């Protein structure tokens, strides 16, 4: 393993910091996120409210910390689900080929051609917007991308002679997938996971911004931007801070992936 570049180290630290913040939010947040603590709405940064206050006078630091739980938590669960489904399907398609590969590829390719935000809107229009629906929708929407990548990587590996040798030895499909193909896919699958995580974060915050994502009183970073948007005209920290939170997280993940040698680029949102 080569040493990471300084940029990658910084990016990794930012991601870890947000992860820790999300986990420890209830312990480190100075106020309960829903409590109105000041009359001074959309206030500027102060010693008492390090990130200012929101449009109702709630503490922004507490809200951003708790927002991290929603944004990162939902994104993490959705991305994990999407990658698990995508990789499982992709590996099976690559190892088995035939009708399974054909059908799966056709359907999932068709799914890719529905832009992600559009797909999310369609699902929400029917099922309404709740956290399980959002997680399920994001997972399903990003499964085809994970499938396509892992299938392509697996097909390349499956064509290698060492897999042919294993076949000739009489090994079963399961052994070939688990012992011969999977260990060689870890890097591309991990980087793909990172990319997809960014896409999910962008999708979720976008939905929240449209008012079609996470519903109050729960608030992720997208919701925080939306509800305080009136503070935009005078640059209130209540709008800028959650926006910055999103940007630091997504840019860090992307920058980290970009610095990993041999990592691929994302295909479609």
């Amino acid at each position, binding site marked *: 393993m080569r040493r990471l570049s300084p940029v990658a180290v910084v990016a990794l630290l930012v991601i870890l910091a947000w992860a820790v913040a999300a986990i420890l939010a209830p312990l480190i947040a100075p106020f309960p996120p829903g409590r109105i603590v000041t009359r001074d709405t959309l206030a500027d940064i102060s010693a008492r409210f390090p990130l200012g206050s929101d449009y109702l006078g709630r503490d922004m630091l507490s809200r951003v910390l708790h927002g991290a739980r929603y944004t990162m938590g939902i994104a993490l669960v959705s991305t994990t689900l999407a990658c698990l489904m995508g990789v499982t399907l992709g590996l099976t398609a690559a190892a088995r080929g035939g009708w399974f590969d054909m059908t799966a590829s056709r359907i999932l390719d068709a799914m890719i051609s529905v832009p992600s935000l559009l797909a999310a809107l369609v699902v929400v229009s029917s099922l309404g917007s709740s956290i399980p629906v959002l997680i399920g929708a994001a997972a399903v929407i990003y499964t085809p991308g994970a499938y396509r990548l892992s299938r392509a990587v697996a097909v390349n590996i499956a064509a290698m*002679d*060492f897999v*042919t040798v294993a076949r*000739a*030895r*009489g090994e079963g499909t399961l052994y070939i997938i688990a012992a*011969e193909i999977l260990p*060689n896919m870890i890097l591309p699958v991990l980087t793909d996971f990172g990319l997809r995580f960014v896409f999910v974060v962008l999708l979720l915050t976008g939905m929240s911004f449209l008012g079609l994502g996470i519903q109050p009183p729960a608030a992720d970073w997208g919701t925080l931007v939306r509800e305080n948007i009136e503070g935009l005209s005078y640059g209130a920290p209540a709008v800028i801070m959650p926006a910055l939170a999103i940007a630091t997280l997504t840019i860090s993940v992307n920058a980290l992936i970009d610095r990993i040698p041999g990592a691929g680029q994302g295909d479609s949102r």
Partner: protein
Amino acid sequence: MSAHVSVSGLRVTVAAAEGGRAAIVDDVGFAIARGEVLALIGESGSGKTTIALAMMGYARQGCRIDGGQIRIGETDVLALSAAGLAGLRGGRVAYIPQSAAAAFNPAQRLMTQVTESARIHGLLDRAAAERKAIELFRALALPEPETLGERFPHQVSGGQLQRITAAMALISDPDLVILDEPTTALDVTTQIEVLRAFKSVVRERNTTAIYVSHDLAVVAQMADRIVVLRHGKMQEEAPTAQLLAAPAHPYTRALLAAFNPPVRAPDAPPEAAPLLEVRGLVAGYGPAGRDGMPALPVLHDVGFTIPRGSVLGVIGESGCGKSTLARVIAGLLPAARGNVKLDGAELPARVADRTRDQLRRVQIVFQSADTALNPARSVRDILARPLAFYHGLKGDAARKRVDALLDMVRLPASLAERPPGALSGGQKQRVNFARALAAEPELILCDEVTSALDAVVGAAVLDLLGELKRELGLSYLFISHDLSTVRSICDQVMILYFGRRLEYARSGAMLVRPMHPYSDLLIASVPEMRTGWLEGAAPAHEATVVRNAAGCTFAPRCAAAVPGLCDSTPPPLRQLSKGAEILCHLDEATLRHTQPDDRKTP
């Protein structure tokens, strides 16, 4: 005679993994007189191409020319500006690449590309450049020289394309031509035509050239002087005849020895009980039609017998179906017709239908050790798997056995914990072989096991194969495109052409004429390690790779073809008195007449 081209103290470096820079070419110097051809010879990684490219002031991505001097005529190449270098390249120094197929832009007509350098450098106007190109096409014995330039690269054969690169290089009458392994990617029968064409234009135009190759026999035909390289350093420099007759450096001697491996006497009499019997095999790729024939048939009616403890060699040009044959026997590709018997019992067509014991007895070893070993697992894991799978060996017993296997292929046990990426090419191929041995097989299918290795390393692996065969009583199906390799290890030989078995003979009888006309062409095309062989070799037929569906597959290229018969009627199976079977319309007497034995056989 003052030197026309001179190089001294040349040093090229790459960024090393541990930081700093490592030299890949170090302190190389030589001089070339006008009209002389100098060869750079060495195995892969010895820095041949790097030196050749440095002659044009060019270094590949990551490389840097760090020192030395290169003079061409009055020009100091390494002192030139970017514009000066662009003026030099293609104008005064021209380059002929290894793979013509990759070096041509698929989107442009051949004429555009051949005349490009003359036009870039303003040497000739368009009409004059095209006239000159046609003249060069003719000199290179290309078909339809007048209209050839209108075609696109994918519309001509590989050998023709390689000759067109020569026209592309010579269009600007360069002071120096660099030929970088220009025939390595070609089949032998194509190589000879290309060599002949190159040689005649180089001689005719009194071209000064650097010829880069790993193949001493080829170089012996082309070069006046030879420089032997190893690890980026010069080992020996001598005139060709002298270097071949009296090599001074031990490394040169090893190279020469590897060229002609000693022919072993057959160990197993063919009368031994048959281990593998193959009859009437038909196989191919693509969906099967209604008659059960695959859409892309590759093998046609192939049959042979491998007696226990003996080696059958399979020779043929690229794409003739050698690997396909190995895949069918291994059960990876079910045959459309025919059967395969192991020890008298029929083997099911698919891996899935074979018993574990049947699978264990036949193992397969592939050409490229790079892709044959799983890069994510250690050597020990790789070797332990067949032990567990076939023999249920685990824990300490498996450890001991892995060490024993490594010892068997002459590798130190300390290698066991490494990943394949940390092994050299020769070591990988030994591990590859040890994995097959772990099953304790009776038959090993060896698909070009030495082709990717350098000559000296390949010869050592070949020796190992021979020893193991004797020690363990193994049988091999040994696939190769290289005649001398096959001859050195095999008891019987089968020659394939477009999936048909044209000749099947004892190894000792292979060089005995009369033989099948294709065998004759194949053998006559293999360069010999002596100067002047090329001039004496029989003129070959233009290698039009057309499949003749109706009659003899080889008819379009056969010098002895009988018009009206060979192109319409499939040839019968014939026995020759030397103990060979061939597919040909001509009988032994006629063949002898067309193949007078006055040509020297290697």
